[in-house]
């Protein structure tokens, strides 16, 4: 496992979406310390795996909702219900505009909920703003 400090943890099962996302972030030099995991189970192992909790946490978690095995909402729930991980910003990146999902995620304490636009320009803009905001503008607790 990568022992370097992680800036962004991207949990996305769709490799195309992941590639476009990473590509855009990299364009703005925001993806130097980025870890891409392909489902919720891997994400939970990465965050809460044996003895790792309380170690270096990512500065931002980008979560897709619809994923095999363990979905994004469950991962969000785990992060936000754990004292040590609660402060970590989690942004949901999803194709779904469905009301119940949005409500549920905010109810669980999500920091942002982004619907990925089909339009590429809008999509890249959203990713760019997202990265800049959470990694540069936002001041996490020390």
């Amino acid at each position, binding site marked *: 496992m990568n022992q370097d400090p992680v800036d962004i943890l991207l949990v996305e099962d*769709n490799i*195309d979406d992941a590639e476009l996302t990473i590509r855009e972030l990299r364009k703005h030099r925001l993806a130097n310390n980025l870890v891409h995991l392909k489902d919720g189970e891997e994400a939970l192992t990465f965050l809460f795996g044996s003895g790792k909790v309380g170690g270096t946490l990512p500065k931002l978690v980008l979560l897709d*909702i619809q994923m095999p095995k363990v979905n994004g909402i469950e991962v969000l729930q785990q992060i936000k219900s754990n004292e040590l991980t609660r402060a970590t910003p989690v942004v949901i990146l999803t*194709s*779904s505009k469905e009301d119940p999902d949005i409500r549920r995620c905010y109810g669980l304490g999500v920091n942002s909920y982004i619907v*990925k636009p*089909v*339009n590429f320009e809008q*999509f890249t803009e959203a990713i760019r703003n997202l990265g800049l905001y959470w990694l540069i503008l936002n001041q996490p607790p020390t």
Partner: protein
Amino acid sequence: MGRDIIDFFQKLLDSSDWPPRWHCGKWTDFHGWLYIISDLLVWSAYFSIPLIIIRYISRRQDIRFIRLYFLFAAFILACGATHFLDAIAFWLPVYRLNALTRLITGILSWTTVFYLVKYLPLAFSLKSSKELEIEIEQRKKAEVLSRESERQVQDLFDAAPDAVIVINEEGYVVKWNPKAASLFGWTAEEAVGQPLSGLIIPERYRAAHQHGMVRHARTGRSDILGKALELQACAKDGREMDIALSISPTFTNGTRLFVGFIRDITWQKKSQEEIRKLNTDLEQRVLERLREVSDYKFALDESAIVAITDQKGIITHVNDNFCKISKYSRDELMGQDHRIINSGYHSKTVIRDLWVTIAHGEIWRGELKNRAKDGSYYWVDTTIVPFLNESGKPYQYVAIRADITHRKKVEEEFHKLNEELEDRVDLRTIQLESAKKEMESFAYSVSHDLRAPLRAIVGFTSILEEEYSSKLDDEARRVTSVIKKNTLKMGHLIDDLLAFSRAGKQEIVKTTIDTEKMVREVINELTAGNSTNHIEWVLHPLASAYGDIHTIRQVWVNFISNAIKYSRGQEPARIEIDHFIQDGQLAFCVKDNGVGFNNKYRDKLFRVFQRLHNPEEFEGTGVGLALVEKIISKHGGRVWADGEPGKGAQFCFSLPTGRDGDQYI
């Protein structure tokens, strides 16, 4: 001897043959005189007795046995004469005369004895005077009684309530009582002595009367004596009347008489006739009523199940229908109560309520399930009518029932079917619910899974354009742009489809909508930054509507944007918005002068993905109007459209008014 007899009578008074008695024998004076005086006493006595007898006879007229009296007088006289001759024999001894006298005395004595013997039994039968006195007394009494009874008879005769007429054998009136006088108008003075036939017998009966009288006189037989007869009589004034008559024969002083008792029964006859008529009439009416009642009974027995019970519920009558349906014979039912057909279906409360009702003299109606003898069940519509006595207490109950088993069966089946239907509806609802859920999850996966590949297509095409543009020629760049355009279009399609499916499940919250304000906002929104063509807006005053503010807004957006879109190219484009009342609903219409459409396709307008224009002419996904239709029908309203190619189109929707039942007319 003959010489002696002649001598005897010649010397009858000669006393010379014998010395006087004083000188014959030795007589003392005392003895002689005792003898003489005694004889003289006897003689004088014997001579006085006939005098007394003669005197007695001469005084009494009713003397019987008068010969015996004279004979007795002669015999006593003769005896006296012998004693006298005995006495004078002391001086003058006429013994021949003496003997003759004694002979005469003997003959008279024996004659008397003979007569006494002959008449003695007759004499014994003669009553003594005491007896005669008693008899006389009795006779006197009887006479008094007889007179009294005669007077009583007369009183009865006078006071009799019936006319009493006595006639003799010749038919002449002998007696005529006052009632007869008042009845027939003839007084007793006028009637007595007249022939009866001329007084009261009508002309037509006179011959028969005469004939009857003659026959009775000749033969002693009669058809009418002793019988009560009813016939007609006439009065002095000629008036005829009905009479009841009875005639009895009687004998008075050896004369045969006839006593007739006559009563005027004219009134009685008339009454009888009236009573007879009334009776006939009554009988007729009773018969009619009976027939009517029996007709009713027949009709009832034909049509209904009838049972009668006493006040304790014991069956006293059942008709054939009752037996037929219960399958019990009449004998099995009589004397039983209705528990024999109790099905046990009804609660005790129902049965108690029934009894309380009818025991209070009220009619009970209801439907009862009964059990027949063979264990099968039947339903009867039942009416129980209590019959009340004078004190208002039921003395019997008449139960009239109708067989409703079939109806009940149908009802039960209907009920069952209903339940089945409900079950099926429930099942369908559940199925529908699950289908809806599936649909939702389908919509979700559409939005999620279909958009992701699109994004990838657009994304990687964009990368190609941006990062490899130097390596692409013009045609390659055109191709990549076509790929991007179609991919974006598909994105819109998916968005609309999701909006459409969301509209179906969205709850609508109705409030009052300021239509004019909403329409102006929508127009402003849609025309902002679009100055390419000029639109002439005709906005009529619009009524407030009652509906869900978000979805109704979507409807307006759709209608107005369509109007703008399809009137593009008209110079000037003209859009008119109005409202009116239709079928009790508030209708709104958006009318344009655009390309319009052929009305034969208007049914397709509101179906999803149905379009009348190709996308090169007018962009669109074919979802908008389907969404409108869905929203309006959720509101309980209607949508419709009217168009003409090249002339324009009009799209309308109507909404129910605010409060239920308060609709525009």
